[in-house]
């Protein structure tokens, strides 16, 4: 049994980047461009803590909201260690790279602070041991992504992209939250630690509640938006408007991995037929469509973005398969993809920096000017294309194996899975080779190449080195000397994503030495890809023509239609509501209250007690005076008369309170009545004396509405006071003196027993003052009609 992790190390791990982010403005002012290395040092410290925690397993928590069983909990296992190591390790490299890339750029403080805060949020997601904590950090990553995608906030594309990324991911996050709430309501706790300790029990609780399919769907939507699966992949290519290190860090290695991480995290609990039938088609369809889109990309980062979507699809499909090989696919590709894709993104930034262009068609023959980069790219891109013996090959083998196993097992339509996997891999190889080809062939005469700074070259070298090492492990294993440490670690990650009753075998990967179905599929995909690449211009033309025929695949249209449609709809609603007449506002407000409260009462099956309390003669007279005052207010010929009549109502109610032995309420009523009266006097001569004639139908509508609102208030009062009032009142009367030391029960309730309510009320008062002030200021400046 491994030791359980120390809570304070986890708090330090997650908190350090946030603290460092808070200190960034001061640091930038002091050391300027060197801030990159400060951030890298923070990331390195986090990486060290991740490594230190790697030997532990289990959860640590402090109670947060006890009654809801929510805690600030953390959980450590292989999966958390893997993604945490990626977040901090790639972080170190990306920060070093930023030293060259962001040198002397404006907005460095914002950039580094947000990147650090993002790293903290990502570590929070990864090590969360509680669904609520996970959700909070999850949304924080979206916020950080919004800020970073919109880094060049002066350009329209950047702002559009940032908003898009934010709306899609946060919107998906809300679905996920509903899924979490359902999950917690079924299992009885928000604690992931508890769920993962007994996945089978959690699962049967979910099944007994009949909530498995809704939960899988909702959580799936959350993961799909974050990991840019169809049809939510639209945000990722646009997000390339961010600086390149951001793309490498957030949009290839870490944030988009949060979605697949979530799938891996909940896989032991939720896996089943629903899970497979939802995720495998989703992942494979994404893999295929995005690979096709990547082939027609015309810019370096656009190609990589679609490729990222495609590879995330592969991971989702891997986690979707119920067999052990599926889990191995997901986990191993998660690792492989982070290494080669982050390297390629950094290469893309480097090439753009060195040549000043990002268009694929304008680049070529760079190997003579950028020899080291050419080697890095070859290693990483061949890994991306799944060419043996580079690292992507092995995880793709696992995918073929998983899909083949499933097809043999289920037959029929399930044979589509291996087929789609192979076809998608054909396109994958095409775009991988296309990316590589900018280093080979003839260099266009117009191209001017600068030598890149060393800080731009070293980080991708490290990443490509890691990718090469992973590939080398396969070769070594063929000769009987596998990298035991690596295989053991990946095995522990795989184990974390397996449901409890599976018989896991030790994780092992190697170059194949005999013909198996997966090997045949690899061979087919590679041959097809190589053939297509030789004719890639023709392929691209055909695919582009296809896409023009079916623009649905580009799918920007649904997002634009939704968002801009919502804008127009809200403008229409606004025109209907915002007429400038107080009467319209009042009518809509009251109608809204009526509908909402009425619906609530109807849904709750409210029964109104009809036994009216008997009124004495005195009370009747007072109330009659109030009624007369109200009628007079309606028929008042001038504002002054109307205000006077309303005051009659107010003071009649005061007398009623006095007679009902509620001096405190009566006193309040008097002072409020006075203040209202004074305010009326202040504004009275500003009001127009005549509002214009209203139509008969309008008057009738207003009258009906008024009567209905009156009825609603009556019902509310009867229902509220009918429900055994003495018990509640009795409690407060009994406890006021011993518990709060006050004899005025009303005031004790206000400031002590229900003090938090009062806090809300005074916040509303302060907000009202701010609103009035703002409205007046805006009006004076001519910003409103």
């Amino acid at each position, binding site marked *: 049994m491994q030791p359980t992790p120390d809570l304070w190390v986890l708090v330090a791990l997650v908190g350090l980047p946030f603290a460092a982010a808070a200190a960034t403005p001061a640091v930038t002012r002091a050391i300027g461009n060197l801030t990159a290395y400060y951030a890298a040092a923070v990331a390195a410290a986090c990486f060290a803590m991740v490594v230190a925690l790697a030997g532990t397993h289990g959860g640590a928590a402090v109670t947060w909201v006890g009654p809801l069983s929510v805690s600030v909990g953390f959980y450590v296992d292989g999966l958390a260690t893997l993604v945490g190591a990626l977040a901090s390790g790639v972080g170190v490299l990306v920060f070093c790279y930023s030293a060259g890339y962001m040198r002397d750029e404006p907005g460095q403080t914002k950039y580094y602070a947000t990147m650090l805060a993002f790293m903290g949020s990502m570590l929070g997601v990864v090590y969360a041991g509680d669904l609520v904590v996970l959700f909070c950090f999850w949304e924080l990553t979206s916020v950080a992504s919004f800020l970073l995608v919109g880094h060049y906030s002066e350009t329209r594309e950047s702002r559009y992209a940032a908003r898009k990324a934010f709306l899609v991911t946060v919107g998906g996050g809300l679905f996920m939250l509903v899924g979490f709430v359902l999950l917690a309501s079924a299992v009885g706790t928000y604690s992931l630690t508890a769920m993962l300790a007994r996945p089978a029990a959690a699962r049967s609780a979910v099944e007994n509640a009949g909530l498995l399919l809704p939960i899988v769907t909702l959580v799936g939507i959350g993961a799909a938006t974050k990991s840019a699966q169809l049809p939510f992949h639209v945000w990722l290519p646009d997000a390339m408007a961010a600086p390149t290190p951001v793309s490498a860090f957030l949009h290839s290695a870490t944030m988009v991995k949060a979605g697949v991480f979530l799938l891996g995290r909940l896989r032991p609990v939720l896996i089943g037929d629903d899970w497979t039938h939802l995720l495998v088609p989703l992942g494979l369809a994404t893999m295929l469509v995005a690979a096709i889109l990547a082939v027609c990309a015309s810019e370096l980062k656009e190609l990589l973005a679609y490729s990222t979507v495609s590879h995330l699809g592969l991971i989702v499909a891997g986690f979707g398969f119920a067999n052990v090989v599926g889990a191995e696919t997901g986990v191993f590709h998660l690792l492989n993809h982070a290494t080669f894709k982050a390297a390629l993104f950094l290469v893309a930034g480097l090439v753009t920096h060195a040549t000043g262009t990002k268009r694929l068609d304008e680049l070529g023959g760079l190997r003579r000017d950028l020899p080291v980069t050419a080697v890095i790219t070859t290693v990483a891109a061949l890994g991306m294309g799944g060419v043996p013996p580079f690292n992507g090959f092995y995880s793709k083998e696992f995918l073929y194996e998983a899909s083949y196993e499933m097809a043999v097992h289920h037959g029929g339509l399930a044979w589509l899975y291996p087929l789609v996997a192979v076809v998608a891999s054909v396109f994958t190889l095409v775009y991988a080779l296309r990316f590589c080809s900018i280093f080979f062939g003839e260099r266009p005469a117009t191209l001017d190449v600068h030598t890149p700074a060393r800080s731009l070259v070293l980080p991708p070298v490290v990443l490509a080195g890691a990718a090469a090492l992973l590939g080398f492990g396969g070769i070594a294993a063929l000769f009987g000397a596998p990298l035991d440490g690596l295989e053991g670690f990946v095995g522990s990650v795989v184990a974390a994503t397996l449901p409890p009753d599976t018989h896991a075998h030790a994780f092992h990967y190697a170059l194949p030495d005999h013909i198996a179905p997966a090997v045949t599929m690899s061979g087919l995909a590679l041959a097809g890809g190589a053939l297509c690449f030789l004719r890639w211009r023709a392929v691209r033309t055909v695919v582009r023509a296809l896409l023009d025929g079916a623009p649905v695949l580009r799918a920007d249209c649904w997002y634009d239609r939704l968002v801009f449609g919502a804008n127009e709809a809200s403008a229409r609603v606004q025109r209907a509501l915002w007429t400038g007449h107080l009467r319209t506002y009042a009518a809509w407000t009251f109608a809204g209250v009526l509908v909402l409260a009425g619906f609530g009462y109807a849904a709750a099956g409210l029964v109104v007690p009809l036994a009216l309390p008997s009124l004495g003669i005195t009370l009747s007279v007072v109330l009659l005076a109030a009624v007369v005052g109200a009628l007079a207010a309606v028929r008042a010929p001038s504002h002054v008369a109307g205000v006077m009549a309303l005051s009659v109502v107010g003071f009649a109610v005061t007398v009623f309170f006095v007679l009902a032995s509620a001096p405190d309420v009566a006193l309040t009523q008097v002072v409020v009545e006075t203040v209202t009266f*004074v305010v009326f006097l*202040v504004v009275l001569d500003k009001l127009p004396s005549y509002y214009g004639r209203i139509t008969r139908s309008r008057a009738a509508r207003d009258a009906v509405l008024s009567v209905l609102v009156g009825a609603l208030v009556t019902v509310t009062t009867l229902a509220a006071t009918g429900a055994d009032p003495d018990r509640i009142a009795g409690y407060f009367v009994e406890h006021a003196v011993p518990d709060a030391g006050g*004899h005025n029960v009303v005031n004790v309730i206000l400031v002590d027993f229900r003090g938090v309510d009062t*806090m809300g009320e*005074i916040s509303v008062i302060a907000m009202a003052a701010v609103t009035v002030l703002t409205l*007046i200021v805006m009006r*004076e400046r001519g910003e409103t009609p």
Partner: protein
Amino acid sequence: MTLILRTVTRVVLPLGFVVSFAFFLQGHNLPGGGFIAGVLTASVVALAYLAYGLDGVEHDVLNREVQTAVEHVEHVQHGIVRDYQTLYAAGLALAVVAGLVAILYGVLTGTHLTFMTQTYRSITVPLYGHVELASAVVFDLGVYAVVVGALLTVISVVGAE
């Protein structure tokens, strides 16, 4: 405004302040409390505005030049509006802090109190007798400040228009 109103206001103003202060203090045991006292104070000041006008209060009572509180805005030109805003902001802050103190106390003493837990002590003052000190009075002071500040902000800004 008329002489009668001005003369009455001069008499009522101090009385109003004293009464509202009394309401505030006795709130725990007799009718009163922060909210009522706040509204009363606000209405008394509003009365002064009615009688003397905003400029009069600003210039004669506070001995300040009439100045602009918000740039380029003619009608929000009284420094006192800014003071009112400070008042309700401070009141809100005080109320929140009064709630948080309980948590801090709970952590320090290991008793785990929740937000806004209140308590009271009875002490005996020589010559005066029994006095009850309730911690809730701090929160109530926040309520008072918010009510006064917010109401007077609204009244003076709207009135200036």
